[in-house]
Structures are given as C-alpha cells and as structure tokens.
C-alpha cells in the first residue's frame, strides 16, 4: 500500500514502523548501505528528523562502525543493510561483536515471504547463516510484530551479557500497514539474566579474599560492559589487591594506578603474567580464561583458588574450575562483595606480595629496548610510547587493527578510562579498526580518535576512508607500515625457520596518496627523529589524517607466550 493511503487510515507502513521503532529506542545514528529489499526502509528513513544515516562503503564497514559506536559509548549500535550480499557482508562484523560481547542491532532487508526458500534474486538465509554468531535473531512475520520485535531486540542486545541481535525484515512486511505503538517494556519469559550474586557465595568470596596472601584481581571486558571500573578500583585500593587486565579490559583500571600490573596473556607483561600465575586467590571479574590469557590451561595458576564473577553462567567453570562461582552482574556483585568485606573488617595482608610484584615490574619492564636499539630505524614500541604521552588521557580513544600493531598498542599506549581502547579481541578481525574508529569518532566528535593500524589490516577496509572523509570523522591513523603481515611473519621467523610464505606485502599502494585520494591529510615518516613532530601535526589537524610510518619488517612483539605453553615460558627479546 502506498504511504499516503496508509496515512489516511491512521496507519503507517512496516518500513515506517521500523524507523519509528529505532526512534523510540532513542537511536541517533544508523550505519548502513541500501539495496532493493531495504529500499522501503530507506525511504522511511528519509523522513526521519532524529536518525542520522552514515553511508558506509561496505556492509562489513557499517557493522564495525556500529560496533565502534557501541564500544565507545556503551549504547546499542545500529546497522541497516539489504538482503543477499548486503546481509552476508555483515557476517564478519556480527561475529566480531559476538566474540567481544558488543551490543549491536543489525537490520537486514529480506525478499518477500512469498519467495523465501526459492533461491530468488538476492535471497540469503541470513538468520540461518548468522545463527552461531548472534545472541538472538528474529525473522519478522508480520508488520504487527515490528514494534515488539525491536523492543525485544534492543533489550536482549543490551542486557545480561551484551551481544549482537539480527532482525530480518521481508520486504512485503515493510509494505504492510499497521497501527503503531511502541511497548514500554520487553517481556521475555525465557530471558531473565541474573544480576544479583548469590549471598552465600558472596560471603564465601569475602572469606577467601580476606585470608589471601597473594590475591590478584583478574579483570576482563565484562567490567567495562557492566560499568564496574570504579568498584574494581575501590576493591583494589581499599583491600590492597593487585590488578591485571585482559586485552578487552584495557582502560577498566587506570594505567596510572600503581596496583595495575597491566596486560596479561600471550603478549602480556612478564610481571603481569607471573602475578596471575603465582597468585593464591584469583578474583576473576567479567573475564573468561581465554586461551590467549591462560596459555596451557593445565599449567595456568596452579596454586590459585578461583572466585569467578560473571553474568554468563556458561563462562564459569568452562575453562577453569571455580572454587567460588558467582553468577551476576559485575557491578552488583562487587558492590555486595565490598559490603561483605567492609562488614568483616579484615583486610588481607598483601604487603609482601605487592613488594614482590614491584620487584618483578622493575626486573622485567615491558619496554625492553630503548630508542637506540636499532639506530636509524623507527622502533614501534618507542614510537607508540611517545604517542601515548602526547594523547589527552581523558579525551582520547585508541583503536587498533589486528596483529603486531594491536599488541604494541596494547603494551605501550596507556589508558586511564574504560571505553577508550577498542580492539577486536575474540575474533581478531583484520579490518575492524578503521571502521570502528570512524564509528567512535562519529559518536564522540570531540574526542581524539587514534587508530594504530598495520599495512595489511588497513587494506581490508580501506574503502571506509571515504566514509570518514564524507562525514568528517575525526580519525587519526598511524600505519605501522612494515610491508608485511607482521604478526604472521613473526611466527614464521620464530617457528617456521624464516620461511615467509605469503606474508610479505611488497606491492603496497602508496598510503599517503591513497589517503589524499580520499581527501585526507597524510604524510610519510621514515626516520625516528621525525616521529614526534608528525604526531604533533596529526593531533593538531582538523579531520582525518594518516601517517604512513615505515618500520622494519623484522620487528617482533615480545614478550610472547607461544601457543600452548605455560605463562611461565614466555620468550622475550632479551633472554630471561
């Protein structure tokens, strides 16, 4: 039915109901890409005064942009695409958000119901294809269901353990007419996350903490999702408990906090990994004992009793048995744990333990080499440490691509606040960084958004440079250009006798010209003494800016715990 006709009847179309639902959810930005089966939704979007549409240059970019928007703000990110290839192009973005528990809603157009299942033009079973990588998904079967479906989708995406939700909207439903009213609440009897921790377990946890001699707070991305940073810091400071953070939790505890013993895992610091491995009580909060953290789980922290706090019951005991399992929201549980500890009035005596950790931190600094380690060459660790010092600690967001660039950024760029370090941790998606940075910059235009990229990853979604240019997204890109798929190259150097199969990117484009072609400002830096001045120019510039920073191909990320080894077996640039 035509829009005008529907309006005369006091009704709106399904497509308009989709847009009205997004408006009712308070959505301000939609990242997307149109097509035949989404054209009606795009037509309805044309009239919206509330929604700003950002036209990505590829649907994968649109989903990562929505993801970056969500991670930077804590709000649900939204992507809108068409059926068939538009929908299948979202899969990597959805899987990336799923692995890192990021709340996004992806709306896909679908062929009309009458031809679903007939291999009609641009039909893909996107609900089926994405089933393993969504928190939940919907195929809308009637325009009358649109409002309720959107209410439920946003509720599911943003509560409990957050995650991506997909809504598939057949185009005949977009054309139906419906009287629209948006529900106040979502009522899903089969979906009731647990927020409050079991009181008995919280007591048991308090007892274990107060008796610990070598406790460690092992903090994961769940702390950021829950907004529990302040409570973690309070627990650490008041009860003198050292903290280590996973890649996903970078920023959850300020880098300047002396009790923060920094990044752990495959490329974590030796002192952080050792602290975790030799602890007697691990308080895991919103962390999942990922294989990138534990190394060989059989040999991981052999003497530790584990208190495991997570909103997802399936994470507890999945990898490591927990002596005290607590299902609940990190903030809620930590608040009750603090109450319990405060009431008890006993603090663990951790003075000797902290002194020991400080000794290790002195002995095994994460920056092992100085600027003079490679005369005449830009040392990426040194360059990023310099960048770290130049960023506004409270007004910047750092985003990474995947590979060495990501690990160096995690190691050498300090973060003081949650939601200021965005990286694809679980899926390790090359091509995530640029669009995620754009999403963050569009969400928070007043922040410095800096992307640390590799020359390989940047080329996976470089078309999004156009998106940044068109929408004036204030992204600053530092390409650590080693003309290689550096991380894989490193593995080949270390474990495959330097047989560099398919990891050397000899024929890269000229990134400066490429950026300029998209109306970005750009420059090349190939000597160490030029680095800081280039960073200064980049940070002072208006709008998108790229530095093509030439680094040596044979640089490695250290320390490194080889896959399957125990955390005690890290290898480094200097023998330990």
């Amino acid at each position: 039915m035509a829009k005008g006709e529907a309006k005369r009847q006091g009704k709106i179309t399904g497509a308009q109901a989709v847009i009205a639902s997004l408006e009712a959810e308070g959505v301000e930005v939609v990242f997307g890409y149109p097509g035949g089966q989404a054209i009606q939704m795009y037509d309805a979007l044309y009239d919206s005064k509330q929604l700003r549409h950002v036209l990505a240059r590829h649907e994968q970019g649109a989903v990562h942009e929505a993801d970056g928007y969500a991670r930077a703000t804590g709000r649900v990110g939204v992507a809108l695409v068409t059926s068939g290839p538009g929908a299948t192009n979202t899969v990597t973005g959805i899987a990336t958000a799923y692995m890192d528990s990021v709340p996004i809603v992806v709306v896909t157009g679908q062929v009309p119901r009458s031809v679903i299942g007939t291999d009609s033009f641009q039909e893909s079973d996107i609900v089926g294809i994405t089933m393993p990588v969504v928190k939940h998904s919907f195929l809308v079967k009637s325009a009358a269901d649109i409002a309720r479906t959107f209410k439920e989708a946003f509720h599911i995406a943003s509560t409990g353990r957050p995650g991506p939700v997909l809504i598939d909207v057949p185009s005949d439903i977009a054309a139906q007419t419906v009287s629209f009213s948006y529900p106040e609440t979502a009522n899903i009897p089969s979906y009731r996350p647990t927020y409050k921790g079991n009181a008995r377990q919280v007591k048991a946890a308090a007892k274990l903490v107060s008796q610990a001699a070598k406790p460690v707070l092992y903090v994961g991305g769940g702390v950021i999702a829950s907004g529990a940073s302040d409570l973690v810091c309070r627990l650490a400071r008041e009860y003198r408990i050292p903290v280590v953070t996973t890649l996903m939790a970078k920023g959850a505890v300020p880098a300047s906090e002396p009790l923060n013993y920094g990044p752990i895992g495959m490329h974590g610091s030796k002192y952080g990994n050792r602290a975790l491995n030799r602890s007697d009580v691990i308080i895991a909060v919103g962390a999942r004992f990922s294989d990138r953290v534990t190394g060989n789980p059989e040999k991981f922290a052999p003497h530790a009793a584990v208190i495991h706090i997570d909103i997802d019951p399936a994470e507890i005991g999945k990898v490591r048995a927990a002596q005290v399992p607590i299902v609940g929201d990190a903030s809620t549980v930590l608040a009750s744990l603090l109450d319990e500890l405060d009431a008890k009035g006993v603090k663990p005596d951790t003075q000797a333990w902290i002194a020991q950790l400080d000794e290790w931190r002195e002995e095994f600094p994460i920056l092992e080499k100085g600027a003079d380690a490679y005369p005449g060459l830009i040392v990426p660790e040194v360059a990023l440490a310099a960048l770290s010092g130049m960023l506004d600690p409270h007004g910047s967001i750092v985003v990474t691509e995947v590979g060495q660039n990501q690990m160096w950024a995690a190691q050498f760029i300090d973060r003081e606040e949650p939601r200021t370090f965005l990286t694809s941790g679980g899926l390790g998606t090359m091509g995530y960084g640029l669009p995620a940075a754009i999403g963050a910059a569009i969400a928070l235009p007043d922040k410095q958004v800096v992307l640390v990229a590799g020359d390989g990853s940047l080329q996976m979604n470089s078309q999004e440079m156009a998106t940044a240019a068109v929408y004036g997204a204030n992204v600053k890109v530092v390409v650590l250009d080693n003309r290689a798929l550096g991380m894989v190259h490193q593995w080949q150097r270390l474990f495959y006798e330097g047989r560099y199969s398919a990891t050397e990117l000899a024929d890269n484009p000229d990134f400066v010209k490429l950026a300029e072609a998209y109306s970005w400002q750009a420059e090349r830096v190939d000597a160490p003494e030029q680095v800081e001045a280039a960073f200064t120019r980049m940070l002072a510039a208006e709008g998108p800016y790229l530095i093509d920073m030439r680094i040596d191909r044979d640089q490695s990320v250290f320390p490194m715990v080889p896959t399957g080894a125990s955390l005690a077996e890290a290898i480094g640039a200097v023998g330990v």
Partner: protein
Amino acid sequence: MNENKHVLSVLVENKSGVLSRVIGLISRRGFNIDSLSVGPTEDPSRSRITIIVDADTEAYEQIVKQLNKLVCVYKLQDLTNDAYIERELVLFKVNAPAERRSEVIEVANLFRASIVDVGASSLTIEATGSQSKLEGLEELLGAYGIKEITRTGKIAISRNSKEA
C-alpha cells in the same frame, strides 16, 4: 546404562528455526546427539524437545548452560538422575512368507507389538517400550530378516511421584 548418557527435556518456543538453534548449538560445540524428538505440548505456543546426549560431566554442564542461554529456551529439565519414563516407537518391516507368518505374529504378540500392515511376503510391526524390550524384539525378528526399521527417537517424562 552408559554413565555419560543424559536425558534432557527442553521446553522451547514453538516457532520456526527453534529446532535448528538448539541442534546447531549442540553440534557446533562438538557434542553428539544420540536421539532427538520434538513435538507440541499441552500449550500450543511451546514445544518439547527430548534430547539424549553422550557427554562427560564437564561437557554436559556446558551443554546445559549454553542451552539455557538460548532466548528460545524456557526450561530445561535433566531427567537422567530422576525417576522418569522413556519410550520410543519403532516400525519393523520383516520378511514373512506365508509359511512363517504365524511365527512372526507370535513373536510380535509376545512383545505386545501390533501388526499394522500385511504384505504378500512381509509384515510391518509397530512396537513401543523401553530400550531393552525393543532391542529384544529386534533380535528375535532378525532371525526372519528385517527389511527396514524406522524409529521416532526417544521421548521421556518424569514420574508422577516427583510431583508429590
């Protein structure tokens, strides 16, 4: 009984795609399904899936937790360690030339199975009951030559005594 065997009764939304969500999750995480059956319940908006899986304790705990996380799952009941009744319906098509037909019928009767179709040289027998009963019947019928077997998969329900 195999100690790794678990009988799960899963109450789900009666909607398209729900079965593939449940099965997909189990297979994706590398667990084996021994038997599965699905049908509507007393409430038409809900279906019950009975799943029998073979998994050690840890793997089994993961399956249960992961299934519970599915938004389409209302309730999950583990019947394994409770008193429960388990049934399966099996259809056997057995060779039965005229001269041996009465023998086959006698075997079926012994097992309270019924003859549901008669052909020139074969009989189709419907049997229901516990696993051991059905295995016993299958063994005896084997002597005559079984041409085809089809089964519903097991369904299970807790015993009434549990409610008391």
